[in-house]
């Protein structure tokens, strides 16, 4: 971020002093937790974008070369025409030198241009993402919120009812659902509740909403969208609630042993107030560091879960693109999922540093 190149040097002395100032500035900025966090996020996005460019353009047998060769051998295109055709799909021109292609690619990404679909000509990848991403964010976001809220409540409950039957039952169930892969839970839901017991009509629940319903902010539409998202959400909740529960339980138990809780009790404060303002607030803090990891896991997991329930979100489209070898879509969706997860990470970290002043004071050095 510190760019000495933009400064016009006049003499050797001023260069040295400018460099020193910039260096000091960089050091001050680096010490700031938030700046460091944002830089790390930017670096992640940059590296992932570079990785996809490498996969799309530089690997032996990469899709751009394959596409150009197919046009030449099957449709009799000249190399020039074929390369122009490819340039229309991918966000760079294969005729240019490699470095220029890379620059164009990054520039296009910065402008939100992910190229065009190979299999459905004329459709931009950006428009596909805009259509399907909201559904994934809706279902995974709701699933995460629900499982976090429920997990925290149940975790506190088990901590307060330690060694009682309810603790043993919930802890065992939590550990069970934490270890079983989420897609297996989804399969079992489809097999038992969908097909065997017939509680849900799996075929009817396909897609993000029913074919006849117009997307709008009406009650019917919201009910329909929730109905279609209910099984993916149930899967996200079931498979992540266990980790929240176990984390909250151990965190609450640790907090209950703190002196300030004993003092609060000695002061004769009401149990409900101690539970929420003294124990709950402090016990919940460590969970925020896990929230970012959970977000990545759930949004990433959507790739399989959406496939199982045929829920038309970004994960479903990603798999379709992979099966049809539609590389621009694949690349665009992978990048947008990464952006979403990186963003969630940054937000969770910033929230955590706001809630827990110790992080800011230490510059987050323990993370």
């Amino acid at each position, binding site marked *: 971020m510190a760019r000495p190149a933009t400064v016009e040097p006049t003499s050797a002395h001023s260069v040295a002093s400018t460099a020193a100032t910039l260096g000091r500035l960089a050091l001050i900025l680096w010490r700031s937790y938030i700046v460091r966090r944002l830089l*790390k*996020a930017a*670096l*992640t996005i940059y*590296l*992932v974008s570079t990785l*996809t460019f490498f*996969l799309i353009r530089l*690997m032996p047998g990469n899709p751009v070369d394959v596409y150009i060769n197919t046009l030449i051998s099957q449709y009799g295109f000249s190399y020039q025409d074929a390369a122009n055709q490819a340039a229309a799909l991918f966000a760079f021109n294969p005729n240019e030198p490699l470095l220029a292609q890379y620059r164009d690619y990054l520039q296009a990404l910065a402008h939100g241009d992910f190229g065009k679909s190979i299999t459905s000509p004329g459709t931009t990848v950006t428009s596909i993402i805009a259509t399907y991403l909201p559904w994934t964010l809706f279902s995974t976001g709701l699933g995460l919120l629900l499982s976090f809220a429920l997990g925290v409540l149940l975790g506190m409950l088990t901590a307060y009812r330690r060694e009682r039957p309810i603790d043993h039952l919930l802890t065992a169930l939590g*550990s*069970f659902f*934490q*270890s*079983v*892969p989420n*897609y*297996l839970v989804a*399969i*079992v839901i*489809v*097999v038992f509740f*969908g*097909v*065997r017991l017939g509680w849900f009509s799996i075929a009817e629940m396909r897609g993000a909403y029913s074919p006849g319903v117009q997307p709008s902010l009406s009650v019917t539409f919201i009910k329909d969208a929730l109905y279609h998202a209910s099984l993916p959400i149930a899967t996200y909740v079931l498979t992540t609630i266990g980790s929240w529960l176990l984390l909250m339980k*151990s965190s609450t*138990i640790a907090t209950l042993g703190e002196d300030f809780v004993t003092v609060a009790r000695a002061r004769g404060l009401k149990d409900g107030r101690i539970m929420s303002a003294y124990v709950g607030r402090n016990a919940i803090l460590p969970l925020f560091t896990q929230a*970012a*990891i959970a977000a*990545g*896991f759930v*949004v*990433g*997991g959507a*790739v*399989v879960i959406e*496939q199982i329930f045929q829920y038309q979100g970004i*994960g479903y489209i*990603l*798999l379709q693109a*992979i*099966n049809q*070898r539609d590389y621009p879509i*694949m*690349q665009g*969706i*992978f990048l947008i*999922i*990464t952006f979403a*997860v*990186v963003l969630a*990470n940054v937000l969770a970290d910033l929230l955590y540093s706001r809630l827990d002043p110790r992080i800011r004071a230490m510059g987050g050095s323990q993370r």
Partner: protein
Amino acid sequence: MTTQPELLAMKPPSLGHRLARSFRLGLSVLWQNKVGFLGFLGVLFFIALAIFGPLIAPSSGEPNMAQIYQPPSWSHPLGTDYEGRDVLTQVVRGGRPIILVGALAAILSTLIAITLGALVAYVEGVLDSIVMLITDVVLTIPQLPLLVVLAAFVRLNRPWLLALILALLNWPTLLRAVRAQVLSLKAREYVEAARALDLGLFHILFREILPNMASYILMSFTIGMTGAIYGQVVLYFLGLAPLAGDNWGIMLNLAWTRGAIFYRDSMPYILAPVIAISLLQLSMVTMTRSLEQVFNPRLREG
């Protein structure tokens, strides 16, 4: 773990001796924790299945179109699949490839995590910052989308290639854990003594610190293996790895795509791999968790 003062004067116990001691300690602890011990027995069972399964059932049988989706019977205890082959035979045979690739991936990711994690924790400074930055970056990339996208570019037709890709996604969490552990072990007296004796980086890391982390390394290994099996089964289930041979992931894929969910008689066909994979993951997680409770006393609750 316990360093009596007189031990310092004596010849240090050999590596094998130390490993055996921490293994015995781990076993005695598992014995006390019933769920953990059950997990340990489960892991032993699956290892045995991986070794002997394909010996018990040398072939998964020929397709028999007259026997499609048969209900469970004496000759086919779990019924038959979409082309009339015995399901139980496939379950018995199907563990080895999954467990083998999982173990291979776990070995690779544990190796990366231990060598790099121990080194940067010991050396600290710029190298530590750089490695931790890379670790954070890789940790943030959503693993499953990366895995399926990579599978679209790389033909995963070799087990070691599959293991390598899975390992490349798995090492960051392990590295963080190893680094934290080495950072705490580094401050112990016996390591300081070794440093005072100027025994050299290699000796201190591999003879003093790592043997005292044997249980920890075992834990990293099983955590890595759970992750690798999770990812591997996804690849088979979504049809992104070649569907050749018998394994639980392929069974899951075929049962799902060939409509086994719609016939009452084919229930065991789809549920068999689901249960096998779940039990494998459950055994490993419960074993690891009870080991964790032992070696991380902060988790032990009264």
